[in-house]
């Protein structure tokens, strides 16, 4: 077992190390792309905790991303908060939203839960539009000039994104390998039995949802800081579908899957946009093909075929 633990530790540290080293070799364009991918992957890592390990599928996760984004953005824009306190406010906003939402929504399960998440996501989107005097509605607002100058430098962007990703990634690996993670998986496999064994499954699911929402919020908060824009499209339904797509592509229930899925999908859209603007075919087609021929995703398949020790 210690051998496995060592391998797991080395692998995950190695991935973070590779991401750190990559910044010295990447060209200008890919440098920013990878920074983006790391933030989006943070969002997917949180999503995976819920879908991959707890078995709860959310179609409204963009509301947590948006809570982080708007918490940070509004704090910086109106209260003049600095980058760090703005970030903290954003993450807090997402955590609170996830907790309140979870208290209601987790009373439902299965398909009802899924539909409720979708509707709440849409309600949050409409709320942003409704309070347009504050949020500036669909047009959104810009944070440039209100943030530390250093955030303009691409090297800073890269390492801030890496730091946010590394923390969430580490937290997810720790949770997954802890007793809590095993209970979450037990809930995924058979909630009834887990409850009969004496576990308060509602509380565990709530915990998973709050951590997942918090990570989405952290991603959203950092996204606002690094790319200086806060807008309602980040709360729209398509933005809730993306983490699902990334997680499934990379492999739900694998720690590395979300990062890989986000990266592959980002470049898939980016490269195909060179020869077709029909990128929704790419998104939709990928989803259908995944379900049909590749249900375990990339890392899930690797784990099943090559390395069963992967977490």
């Amino acid at each position: 077992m210690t051998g496995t633990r060592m391998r797991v530790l080395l692998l995950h540290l190695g991935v973070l190390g590779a991401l750190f080293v990559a910044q010295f070799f990447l060209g200008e364009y890919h440098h920013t792309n990878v920074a983006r991918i790391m933030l989006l992957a943070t969002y997917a890592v949180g999503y995976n905790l819920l879908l991959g390990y707890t078995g709860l599928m959310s179609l409204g996760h963009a509301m947590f991303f948006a809570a982080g984004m708007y918490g940070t953005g509004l704090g910086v824009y109106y209260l003049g908060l600095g980058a760090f306190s703005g970030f903290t406010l954003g993450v807090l906003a997402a955590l609170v939203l996830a907790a309140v939402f979870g208290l209601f929504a987790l009373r439902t399960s299965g398909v009802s839960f899924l539909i409720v998440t979708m509707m709440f996501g849409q309600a949050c989107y409409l709320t942003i539009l409704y309070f347009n005097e504050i949020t500036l509605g669909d047009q959104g607002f810009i944070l440039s000039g209100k943030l530390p100058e250093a955030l303009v430098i691409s090297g800073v962007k890269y390492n801030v994104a890496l730091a946010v990703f590394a923390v969430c990634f580490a937290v997810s690996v720790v949770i997954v390998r802890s007793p809590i993670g095993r209970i979450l998986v037990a809930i995924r496999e058979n909630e009834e039995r887990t409850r009969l064994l004496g576990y308060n499954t509602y509380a565990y699911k709530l915990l998973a949802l709050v951590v997942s929402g918090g990570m989405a919020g952290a991603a959203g908060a950092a996204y606002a800081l690094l790319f200086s824009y806060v807008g309602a499209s980040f709360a729209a339904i398509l933005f809730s579908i993306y983490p699902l797509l990334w997680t499934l592509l990379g492999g739900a229930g694998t720690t590395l899957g979300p990062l890989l899925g986000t990266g592959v999908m980002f470049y898939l859209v980016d490269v195909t946009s060179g020869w077709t603007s029909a990128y929704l075919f790419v998104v939709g087609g990928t989803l259908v093909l995944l379900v049909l021929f590749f249900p375990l995703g990339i890392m899930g398949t690797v784990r099943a075929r090559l390395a069963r020790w992967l977490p």
Partner: protein
Amino acid sequence: MTDKTKSRGPDTNNKHTITRRNLIKAATITGGAAALAGVGTLATGPLARSAYAAGSDSPIRIGFQVHRTGIGATYGRWYERTANAAAAYMNENGGIAGRPVELVPEDDGTDPKRGAEVVEKLANQHKVDFVYGPLFSHVVIGSAPRAGELKIPYFVVSEGYHVASGKLNRYVFQPGITDVRAQVSAMAPWITDNLGKRVTMIFPDYAFGYDHRDFFSAAVKARGGSIAALLAIPPTESSYTKYFPRIPADTEVLYHVMVGPGVLTFVKEMGEHFGSKRPEIFGFIDSLEGVSIASPGLEFLEGTHLWEAMPRYADGLDTPYARHYRSRVGINAEGASAADPKDVSTNSHMFGCWETLYAIKEGVEQSGYRSRTPDDVAALIETMEGFRGFNEGIAHPQGPKDFDGKLHQCYGRQFISKVQGGRLKVVHTTSIEDGKYAPEGDYTKQPL
């Protein structure tokens, strides 16, 4: 140079020491003057073509951020046609500074997130000289910070009140289309003088609607009019009948601006509601861009008025420049595609693509811009900030423009048309001054 331009070069007061940049400018002003002297209005002869030979043949690459998919796709299709037509015509006539123009299009899905990525991709991967072309405000606002950080000039054709609000940055310009604040300020006096003073506004419940709400109602009040009611309609709405009872009975003018796929329903239901007893109705053409005025359900608009930035029907602006523009872009006298009369253009917006490309051309030629080095970019920006306006001509078929270098925004005349016999007939043309307002920002104070 085949067009009459009156761009009056850079403001020479703002620099006292002689730098390389100033020298370049000085040299190009002379060049510009020479070109001005030699213009024949529509001459596209060998003289112009020979300009090619003089310059380097490496193309000027202009990244084109285009709404091919998403909610802006109707506009995007026409923006692309217009931009291609402008680039093709330019290339037949010497390109920009003797270099051919190459448009590098990328779809942004009408999405601010992808928009910012597209700016990065164009700037860093395709290594274009400038980025150009977006219409939807949220895409502009979402992309502008990245353009500023990457220090790449970003020319938008958006009509929104964002460049002129002073909230973007020094790299963003809107030299080809008037912003909405100026548009509505210019129209309001005509409306209160000719249609009525008590106005109810119906507008979409998002940012574009708020610009109308704020600036139009202010302009109406400034002319002694008053606002009877403000009705914001949510963007997801698909039926409007239930809103019409909220229109107060003492409304003299109903002002509507509806953007999006719901507009035909809106008009039809408005007709069903009012029948023959209707107030005066004034609309913003954005509602009906890409839509035939003769569509079923639009009969109710007969006798009402619409604002146009550039008349859809050829007789509304019968100048050689407008005719030239229409034939090059490929639209017929009814404002529809010459190839497919059912494919109606977005003529009140897309001319901005044509004119913006020419504004870029003038900026490049007068600043001596050669490649995207900090010096050349700075020279281009300072040169364009020195522009005072553009003359009507091949390059600016919609009409003359004033340009405010501090706000990076241009101002042109506007048209008010009446729906008569299922087509639009221009009944009034505003002057550029009608739309002027006190500026709220100054980009030239920002560092480059």
